[in-house]
C-alpha cells in the first residue's frame, strides 16, 4: 500500500478563528478545507467499561498526512480512543470510518493501521530484522522483497548494525526505534503511537520527537500520537485534541491551543497561565472590560460573546506581562505589586508578584542584558502591565 501524495489540493488559507494564528506549518491545514475528506472519522464514539465511561460521545476528523496528538492526563480516555482505532477495543456506541470505510467491526489484523505500543511489545524471540519484517511476512510477501523493505526501514532509523540482535540486547532508545520501524515497515496509511517516548529520558525524548517528525514527513503517513506531555504534543503535532475525563475539550493547532485556549482547564494544562476571576463590566468595540475580584480593571480584546455581569476569567500567559519599576502611562491593565519570589532559569527569569488585591501573578522576562540597569529584586515594588490583546477571556 503506498501513501497517496497529498498536498496536491492546494490548501486554502482560510484564516482560523481567533485573533492570532501561530501554526508552525502554515501552509498545511486540510481541516479548514470543507471539501477535503478526512482519513479517520470518529462518529459519536462512546466507550463504557462496566459503569465507567472512558470516552464520551466523541466526534473527530483527522486528515491525511496530519501529525495528530491526543493529549490529556492519564485516565482521560485518549489511549482508549487510540486502541479503538487499532481495533483492540470495541466502541460501545458510534462508528469509526477510515478512508471512507466503516471499520468499527473490523478485526485488528485487517485494519490499514499499525500501532507502536507504549511497552514497544517487541517479540523477544525474534531479532531486530525478524521484528521489523513480522508484518510483511503475514502478507506473504516474497522473501527478497521483505528483506528490501526491512533494510529500508532499518536504514531510516539507523538500525542496520543491530539487525541480528535480540530486543533484550538493545538499549531503550534502540528498542524504541525498532518499534517505530516495525510500525512503519508495512507502509500503513495511519501509524498509531501510544505514548511512544514515555520510557525515554528527557534528552533522548527530544531527539526522538524530531526523529518522529522526520519519519512522518518523509513517509507522508498520517501519525496519531497519544501523549500526556504537552510539550511533546506542541512539538510534534499539526493539531492537538485535548481530552479530559472522556470528553474532547478542544481540537486546534498547537498555536491556537496555546494562544486561544477554550477553557481554564486547557489554559492551565498547556503552559503556565495567570487567571483573573471577575465580572464583565462593559463590552464595547470588540473589547471586554472586566472588574476582577482582586480589585483591578482589566481590558481585553475578545471575540467571545459575553454579557455585562457575567462571570469570566482572563487567562494571561506569563511571557505577555511586562514587569518594571516604573508606573506605565496607561491605567488599563496595569497592576502594582510586590516581588515575592524569583526563579532564575538562566535565559529567562520567573517573577512571582503579589498584587495589592492578594493575587499571585507570574511574569516572565528574558535576561537579555548581562546586567540589567536596575535589576528587579525580592521585595521590590513593581508594576505589571500588558496590552489589550494579550489575554484571553474564558467563560468555562
Amino acid at each position, binding site marked *: 500500500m503506498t501513501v497517496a501524495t497529498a498536498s496536491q489540493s492546494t490548501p486554502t488559507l482560510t484564516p482560523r478563528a481567533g485573533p492570532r494564528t501561530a501554526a508552525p506549518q502554515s501552509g498545511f491545514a486540510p481541516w479548514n478545507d470543507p471539501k477535503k475528506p478526512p482519513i479517520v472519522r470518529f462518529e459519536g464514539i462512546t466507550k463504557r467499561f462496566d459503569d465507567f465511561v472512558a470516552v464520551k460521545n466523541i466526534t473527530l476528523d483527522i486528515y491525511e498526512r496530519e501529525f495528530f496528538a491526543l493529549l490529556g492526563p492519564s485516565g482521560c480516555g485518549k489511549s482508549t480512543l487510540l486502541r479503538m482505532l487499532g*481495533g*483492540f477495543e470495541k466502541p460501545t456506541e458510534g462508528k469509526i470510518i477510515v478512508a471512507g470505510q466503516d471499520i468499527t467491526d473490523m478485526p485488528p489484523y485487517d485494519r490499514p493501521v499499525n*500501532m507502536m505500543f507504549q*511497552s514497544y*511489545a517487541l*517479540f523477544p524471540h525474534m531479532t531486530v530484522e525478524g521484528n521489523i519484517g513480522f508484518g510483511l511476512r503475514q502478507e506473504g510477501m516474497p522473501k527478497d522483497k521483505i528483506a528490501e523493505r526491512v533494510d529500508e526501514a532499518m536504514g531510516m532509523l539507523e538500525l542496520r548494525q543491530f539487525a541480528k540482535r535480540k530486543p533484550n540486547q538493545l538499549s531503550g532508545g534502540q528498542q524504541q526505534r525498532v518499534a517505530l520501524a516495525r510500525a512503519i515497515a508495512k507502509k500503513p496509511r495511519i501509524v498509531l503511537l501510544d505514548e511512544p517516548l514515555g520510557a525515554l529520558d528527557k534528552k533522548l525524548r527530544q531527539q526522538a520527537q524530531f526523529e518522529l517528525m522526520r519519519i512522518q514527513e518523509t513517509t507522508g503517513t498520517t501519525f496519531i500520537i497519544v501523549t500526556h506531555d504537552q510539550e511533546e504534543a506542541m512539538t510534534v503535532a499539526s493539531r492537538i485534541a485535548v481530552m479530559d475525563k472522556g470528553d474532547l475539550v478542544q481540537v486546534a493547532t498547537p498555536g491556537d491551543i496555546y494562544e486561544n485556549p477554550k477553557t481554564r482547564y486547557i489554559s492551565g494544562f498547556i503552559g503556565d497561565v495567570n487567571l483573573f476571576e471577575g465580572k464583565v463590566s462593559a463590552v464595547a468595540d470588540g473589547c471586554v472590560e472586566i472588574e476582577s475580584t482582586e480589585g483591578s480593571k482589566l481590558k481585553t480584546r475578545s471575540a467571545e460573546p459575553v454579557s455585562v455581569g457575567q462571570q469570566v476569567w482572563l487567562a494571561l500567559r506569563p511571557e505577555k506581562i511586562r514587569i518594571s519599576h516604573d508606573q506605565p502611562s496607561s491605567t488599563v491593565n496595569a497592576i502594582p505589586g510586590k516581588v515575592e519570589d524569583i526563579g532564575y532559569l538562566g535565559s529567562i527569569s520567573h517573577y512571582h508578584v503579589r498584587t495589592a488585591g492578594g493575587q499571585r501573578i507570574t511574569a516572565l522576562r528574558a535576561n537579555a542584558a548581562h546586567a540589567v540597569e536596575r535589576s528587579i529584586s525580592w521585595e521590590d515594588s513593581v508594576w505589571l502591565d500588558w496590552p489589550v490583546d494579550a489575554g484571553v477571556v474564558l467563560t468555562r
Partner: protein
Amino acid sequence: MSSSSSPDIRRWYVIAAPYLWLLIFFLIPFFVVFKLSLSDVATAIPPYTPIFSWSTGIWEFFSQLDFENYTFIFGDPLYINAYFSSVKIAAVATFLTLLVAYPMAYGMARAPKAWQPTLMMLVILPFWTSFLIRIYAWIAILKPEGFATLFLTKLGIISEPLQIMNTTTAVYIGIVYSYLPFMLLPLYASLEKINPSLLEAAQDLGSRPWRSFWQVTFPLSLPGVFAGCLLVFIPAVGEFVIPDLLGGSDTLMIGKTLWTEFFNNRDWPLASAVAVLLLFVLIVPIVIFQRQQQLEREAGR
C-alpha cells in the same frame, strides 16, 4: 568451586548446605546401590555377598565385586525391552499430558487475575489426597463395571463395558492424571509471563489469532513446555505404582521389573543393577533439563 577467597565465609555455609544434603541422601545411597549391583546374590540375610568385614580386608572385598549382573541384563531381552517400553510409554504419556495441560494452562493464564489463585489451588488440590488412593480410585472408575462404563452407557455412547482396565491405555490415563500438575505449573508460569500486548502487536501487524499463537505464544512458552515435559517424563520412566495397579501383564515397565527382581526374586544385586542402568537412561533428559534451565536463566538476566 571458584578459588576466589571471598571474605564472606557465611556464603560458603549457604552453598554447602544443599551439597551436603545431596551427598548424604543421594550420593552415598547411590554408591551403596552401585556396590550392591556389583555383588552376587546369596541365600542369606542380607541376601548378597560380599559383606565388608575388617577381618578379610579391603582387597579381598573388592576382588569379589564384578559386572556379572550388567552382562546378564544386556544378555536378556526382557530387561532391554522393559527399558525401551518404559521410555516409549513415558514419552507417549508425556505428549498426552502436554496436549491436555496446554489448553488448561493457557486458559488459566488468560483467566481474570482474581481467579488465578483459585484455579491454581484447584490444580494442586489432588495432592492433598494420597497418590495411592487416587490411583485406586481410578481402578473403580476404569474397571468394566466401573463408573466410566456406567456413565457412558447411561449417555448411550457405549453399549458394552469398557475394557481398558489392565491395559496400557489405563497406564496412560493414570500417568496423565497423576503428572498433570507437573506439566501444568511450568506451562502456566511461562504463559502467564507473556506480555498480552505482544499478541496485540502480532494482530496489529496482520497476524490472525491462530497464527499469532504459533508465531508468538507457542515459541515463548517453549521453556515451560521443556520443563513440563521433563518433569513428567523423568519420573514416568521409572513409574511403578501406576503400571502395577492399572496396567496389565502386557504393560512392560522397568519399575515393575525392578520391583519383581527385588521383592519376588529377592535378587537385590540384579535389582540394583537395573536401578543403576535406569539412572543412566535418565541422565540424558536430566542433562537436557539442566541445560534448558541454564539457558532460561541467561535469557532472563
